């Protein structure tokens, strides 16, 4: 490089960097699980079965994309599952009142946005820690749907509404899967190909530094909360359509599954680093593990243990690696 002022933004050569990346390791794990599943069960390599299996991660994945960006920026949103519950409840109420499909979808998205906006205001305007705020709104949003629904269920969804969670765009490619891929591309581009994405990394690494560099930190964070709310609303439309009904307990415990997916995808829980392709791979790994174990009728608790070990491994390995390396050299 003749230009003396050139500062390389990548220290390793691309191939070497790829091989050492978290995403490459995850991809290897995904391939290994895929092969293991194919050998273990004669039912695994069937396009329709694999298509069914994608439902294990599509809705979670839709929320995991904006959640990954939020965590990279040093914040978190634990109210996503409750947002689904509230959005689904209000959609159900509207469906019972006879609202058409387009209105139902709109309600889902608007409620999601509203929930995200409320979190955003509390975190960015009042300066409260997001983990505390969203633990609060987690109870608040689900509490509201319990108040509205109680022990009842909404089941009066119009027939065509089933398309979002049960329909196929073509052959075995379900609407949810196509949406998942589309959103992966959109969020991948947003995080890795725009200045907005660079700002998110900057904020996660050093919020004060980012602020003094002229980044409108509060605004970026607010947008991320809004995106997370919006995607929770979209997930609510898909899940409600797939279940064909709403109960206040819908999507119970999903916030932790989403966070698990994000962290498994290599996003640093303390913020500052992580990629969208990593999250896509983590979604695949979780979906394949769940489905493969399901085919072998392995009890769910064993799956949870496996995912838990995978997660601890994911967090521990890089630290062990960096701790051992200096001694070795």
């Amino acid at each position, binding site marked *: 490089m003749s230009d003396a002022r050139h500062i390389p933004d990548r220290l390793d050569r691309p191939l070497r960097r790829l091989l050492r990346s978290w995403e490459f390791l995850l991809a290897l794990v995904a391939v290994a699980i895929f092969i293991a599943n194919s050998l273990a*069960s004669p*039912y*695994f390599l*069937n396009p329709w*079965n694999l298509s*069914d*299996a994608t*439902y*294990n991660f599509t809705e979670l994945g839709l929320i995991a994309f904006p959640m990954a960006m939020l965590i990279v920026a040093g914040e978190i949103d634990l109210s996503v599952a409750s947002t689904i519950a509230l959005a689904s409840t209000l959609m159900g109420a509207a469906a019972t009142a006879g609202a058409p499909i387009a209105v139902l979808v709109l309600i889902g998205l608007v409620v999601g946005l509203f929930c995200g906006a409320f979190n955003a205001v509390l975190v960015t305007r009042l300066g409260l820690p997001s983990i505390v705020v969203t633990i609060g709104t987690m109870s608040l949003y689900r509490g509201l749907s319990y108040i509205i629904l*109680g*022990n009842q*269920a909404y*089941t009066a969804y119009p027939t065509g509404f*089933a398309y979002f*969670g*049960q329909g196929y765009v073509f052959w075995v490619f379900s609407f949810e899967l196509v949406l998942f891929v589309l959103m992966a591309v959109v969020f991948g581009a947003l995080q890795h190909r725009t200045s907005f994405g660079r700002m998110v990394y900057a904020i996660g690494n050093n919020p004060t530094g980012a602020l003094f560099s002229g980044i409108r930190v509060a605004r970026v964070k607010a947008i991320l909360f809004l995106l997370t709310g919006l995607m929770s609303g979209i997930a609510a439309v898909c*899940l409600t359509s*797939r*279940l*064909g*009904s709403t*109960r206040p*307990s*819908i*999507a*119970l*415990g*999903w916030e932790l599954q989403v966070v698990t997916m994000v962290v498994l995808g290599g996003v640093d829980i303390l913020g500052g680093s992580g990629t969208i392709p990593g999250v896509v791979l983590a979604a695949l790994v979780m979906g394949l593990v*769940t*489905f493969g174990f*399901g*085919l072998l*009728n392995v*009890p*769910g*608790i064993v*799956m*949870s243990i496996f995912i838990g070990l995978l997660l601890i491994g994911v967090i521990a390995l890089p630290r062990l690696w960096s701790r051992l390396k200096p001694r070795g050299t």
Partner: protein
Amino acid sequence: MSIFKKALTTAAVATALATSTATIAQAAPMRIAVVVKALGIGFFDAVHKGAEEAAQKLGNVKIIYTGPTNTTAEGQIQVINSLIAQHVDAIAISANDQDALVPVLKKAMSRGITVISFDSGVAKAGREMQLDDSSTPLIGKTLIKLAADHMPNGGEVAVLSASATATNQNAWIAAMKGDMKDYPKIKLVSVVYGDDLSDKSYREAQGLIKKYPDLKAIIAPTTVGIAAAAQAVEDDHLTGKVNVTGLGLPSQMAGHVKSGASKSFALWNPIDLGYAATMISYNLATHKAKAEPGAKIGMGRMGTVTLDKNNIGVMSDPFTFNASNVDKYAKMF
């Protein structure tokens, strides 16, 4: 090797192959999946035991006992998707949500899988039939009879239920109130709610004992409530004065029956339930019976079940446990 010998070996090998494929085809067992609300619940482990008993009796039937880790509809849907992928012959499910499981169970039925629900039912569109453990009128009648059997002179009784919104408990209590006209000397003084939490149920039971000094019986139509109430009676040294009864698990209640805090209690027998659900699944999957209103379907040693207009059948009366049999069942569930 002569041609003759060669031909003979080929023939022998061919025959051997043919027979072995035939045996394999014959040996492929019918797979009946028993899907429960969540794994690790004693009640459902006993259901599993009953299902295995039926499988053994039928022969060539394999039970796949499965369920999610938490009692969620989403978890059960994942499990059912993997069962559909395995092309099991029948699914018998105790549902976490009567509506949310309908789409996936419809899919299972459209792929030729026999689907029935038992215990906690699925809406009509999502199953061929539902097997109720017992019926609301039968449970209501049993609840008041359990208390009345031990209070020949009548007196005050109180109910300790689960939550105020629990559909099952509310229906049973309503049925029980209807049957109280047969016991004019018994007076229901209060209905309280312990929300199926041990500590809250315990406090509510203590409250009842303090508030109604002449209380003769506490009827708790919930397994959590009955155990907590029996403990409260023992701790307040009122054994023999206040009888705790209702619906309970033998394993949790055996000690309280021995201490005398509970003279008897009832519950549907989950072993019978698993057995009956398996028998019905087998009869439907082999087309020996068809699930339609008015149909009578065999349940082996449990007799036959008759379906009503919504394809719902009732297995039996709740089963009464007392000092004579509680130990035997306590080992199982």
